[in-house]
């Protein structure tokens, strides 16, 4: 599929950048004229992926988060990547309400939300080298 537009940014693994990342993606996606609900779903999914990179990938230590967005006709692909610790057991991590950090009041719903608020969702991860989340969201307009 031919892409219409593309952007790539990197930013520090800091919690203030959760809001920054979702606003950037929403602003870029606006070119495809999504509905407010589609945009809200996309922002929520992006927020989950960036939060995971900060808390789990980099374990609240300094790091860099890489984000790439590609626009296609009626669809956006968002890739969010960290070079952090990686996920030990992806299948377990995908179980709704499963969390490795209950003491931080994590709900364990991050992956469930990414999955149900987008049209496709993939996790690539290896221990010691990081995690890459690829999400695609279709816009009906």
């Amino acid at each position, binding site marked *: 599929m031919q892409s219409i537009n593309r952007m790539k940014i990197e930013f520090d693994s800091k*919690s*203030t950048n*959760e*809001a920054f990342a*979702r606003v950037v993606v929403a602003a870029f996606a606006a070119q495809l004229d999504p509905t407010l*609900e589609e945009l*809200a779903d996309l*922002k*929520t999914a992006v*927020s*989950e992926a960036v*939060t995971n990179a*900060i*808390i789990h990938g980099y374990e609240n230590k300094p790091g860099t988060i890489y984000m790439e967005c590609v626009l296609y006709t009626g669809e956006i692909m968002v890739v969010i990547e960290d070079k952090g610790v990686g996920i030990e057991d992806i299948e377990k991590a995908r179980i709704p309400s499963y969390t490795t950090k209950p003491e*931080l*009041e*994590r*709900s*364990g*719903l*991050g992956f*469930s*939300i990414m999955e*149900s608020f987008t049209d496709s969702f993939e996790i690539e991860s290896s221990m010691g080298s990081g995690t890459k989340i690829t999400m695609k969201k279709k816009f009906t307009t």
Partner: protein
Amino acid sequence: MDITVQQEKSVLTVFLKGELDHHTASKIKDTIDLLMLESSVKMLILDMSEVTFMDSSGIGMIAGRYRRVKSLGGSMSIRNANKVISKVLKMSGINQLMKIS
């Protein structure tokens, strides 16, 4: 995230304004927990009318406050959640633990 509180006897109402994510959740948690330590709270009400965004970090914060107020023998409810917020609340199943309007 702006937090305004109103307390009438054992009923604590917390008005949230802004975006509820991992970054802002800890401030809300600390504010509510301190108030629950300082006085007897039997009913915690979260007013979400001015919350424009919430992700699973908000769910974690709400579930944590629910456990705390429950351990004090009280209860909790959420009011004025908009459509976008309600979608995340429903997905979490938290609507089975407390009244959401």
